[in-house]
């Protein structure tokens, strides 16, 4: 007769050398939801502490940028704005773009910037990049508010703006895609830079360059042929164009390109979460 092995005991946790690639513990993420919210609060509260204008800076930033763009690209370089008032055109692009860029920049150094905390205490590492998405969402909300104020002004006093009201419901989807892409690229880069820091050099100016390839400044309508195709391969382009199409009435709107962007985002998140998951186990030894 065989004696049953006592090994069949129940263990709450087994610490092993490597995570299985599919071992993503969503339950643990949920258990730490309070931490996510507190981190969001920390980000929001701490940024403008000891400033006089406080959260007003959230307003000032996009307005100044839009004015600068209107002046440089609109008045001096005379780049087409699809017949939309410059300030509104640039602001539409910048609002959404800033969200993506902030998410990407801040998640892309998750491991390096948080090495101090990560080296001392364990919690699901994905909480940090997820909290970045949420805290930037607050900033996006504020900036959308300014955009909408200016947009309403032009809606009333000018006839250049013709929104597509029936597509308004798509706004959350577009924001979600932006968040997903920023998150996906961000954690991918943060995972790849724990050991070899080379990519960090790329990210600084890479994001800047990408902006010009994402129709924030130059609309798709002023491109044609291969250049246009290349620009659309960048999933951000169709999202920003769709946003402009919905709110301003001009722009490039194509459902298939949007579906392509959505698929791109899903695959990106899938692979980057796998890599992130693999790296988080032992990054402390190499970071």
């Amino acid at each position, binding site marked *: 007769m065989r004696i049953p092995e006592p090994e069949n005991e129940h263990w709450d*946790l087994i610490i092993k*050398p490597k995570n299985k690639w599919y071992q993503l513990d969503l339950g643990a993420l949920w258990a730490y939801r309070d931490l996510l919210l507190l981190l969001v*609060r*920390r980000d929001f509260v701490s940024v403008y502490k*000891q400033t006089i204008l406080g959260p007003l800076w959230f307003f000032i930033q996009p307005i100044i940028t839009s004015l600068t763009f209107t002046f440089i690209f609109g008045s001096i370089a005379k780049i087409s704005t699809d017949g939309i008032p410059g300030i509104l055109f640039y602001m539409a692009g910048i609002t959404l773009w800033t969200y993506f860029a902030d998410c990407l920049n801040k998640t892309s150094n998750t491991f390096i910037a948080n090495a101090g*905390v990560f080296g*001392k205490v*364990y919690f699901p590492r994905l909480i940090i990049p997820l909290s970045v998405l949420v805290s930037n969402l607050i900033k996006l909300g504020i900036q959308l508010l300014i955009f909408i104020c200016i947009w309403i002004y032009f809606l009333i006093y000018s006839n250049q703006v013709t929104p597509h009201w029936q597509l308004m419901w798509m706004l959350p989807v577009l924001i979600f895609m932006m968040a997903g892409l920023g998150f996906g690229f961000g954690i991918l880069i943060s995972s790849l830079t724990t050991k070899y820091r080379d990519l960090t050099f790329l990210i600084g100016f890479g994001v800047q360059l990408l902006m010009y390839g994402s129709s924030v400044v130059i609309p798709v309508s002023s491109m044609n042929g291969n250049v246009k195709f290349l620009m659309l391969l960048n999933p951000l382009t169709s999202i920003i164009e769709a946003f402009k199409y919905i709110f301003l009435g001009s722009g490039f709107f194509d459902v298939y390109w949007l579906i392509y962007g959505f698929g791109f985002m899903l695959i990106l998140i899938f692979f980057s979460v796998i890599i992130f998951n693999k790296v988080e186990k032992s990054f402390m030894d190499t970071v």
Partner: protein
Amino acid sequence: MSTVIKVENLGKQYRLGQVGTGTITNDFNRWYHKVRGKEDPYLKIGETNDRTIKGNSDLVWALKDINFEVKQGEAIGIIGRNGAGKSTLLKILSRVTGPSVGDIKVKGRIAALLEVGTGFHPELTGRENIFLNGAILGMTKQEIKRKFDEIVDFSGVERYIDTPVKRYSSGMYVRLAFAVAAHLESEILIVDEVLAVGDAEFQKKCLGKMGDVSKGEGRTVLFVSHNLQAISAFCQKGIILDSGKLHSINEVGVSIQTYMDLMKDFRFNANTSKKDRVNRTSGNASFQKLGCFKDGLINESNWTYKADEDIHFAFSCITNEVCEGLTFYMAFLDTLTEKVITNVKTNITTNQIKTGTIVEFKICIPKGNLRAGQYDLYFAIGNTNTTLFYDVIDSNINIPSLLIIPTSDDPHQNIGYFNTTYSVYEKNV
């Protein structure tokens, strides 16, 4: 009691030197072996982690072949020199980093306290930081809310609670941070050397809290410290790590003694040349054998007593030349400050002793005269009249230090007493 932590064949390999282009070839090689389904070639060539000697390989085993089990409610002290692998073990247990080989099985929630104040944000107030830090350590908001008053009370910084922590004194900062950590609720608590913070009052409070956790609340505790007294006070068992290997697991008193022996490579041995010893003089007489006198035997290696035991030392000396009398000197020194706490001088004999005579004597220190703690010992024999010693034995060179372990049922625990005489004067009004 059931096993709550089971560590099996645990090993952790580190690469020394800088990460650079050399590393990428290693990584490729490792990856190439992996695709072909072969074992990682680098796991085979690692060396034992001894920081003092120069090695041949860049790869060292910070931990290797670690196997042990922890039962529920046990408090275990982990001791070892710097670089023995204590913190690495705790890091793996707390999932900060993964092992290279082997695994750990755990029952129940683990809370790790490798540092106090992890994630404190200088701009946030004390109140905000309590919540943030608590959440980082794994508490829910509800839990923190419930314990908030208790935490603030424990920290003793109530007045500053709504001030950004960057304005705190470093002591206040640490107080608040430890207070949060002390209120963690988990079945298993892992504590790295974090108790040595704050002022004396707060340290006492922390140590008290640790005692409650390990004794009163019946939680499983793993505790790393160089404070051997704290270890002997809280822990029932001791694990000794030496150069990344598990040296031994024992009852805490035995472990500490073993560890102290390990720390002192020198052992008193009558056969070793006297010239090798820094403080041993080649005089008219020399110690042959000395140790604790327990159960009718001289024990040369175990220098541990419980606080409620009488302390006996036994000595054996031999005269190398004719000696005009023999006097024994004994001193107790503080291990940290190396200051003499008390010393004794005893004339064994004032008569002349012939060459080659063996003199044996014992000395007894009744219980309660020495408070619990660690003492360096200093024994010497010499001439009655001069201060020139024939032979000297010193804790730092020849023998381990003496350890007196506090006993919980001893009313004189930790205090000790003097034999005092006093008389009462009558007062005339």
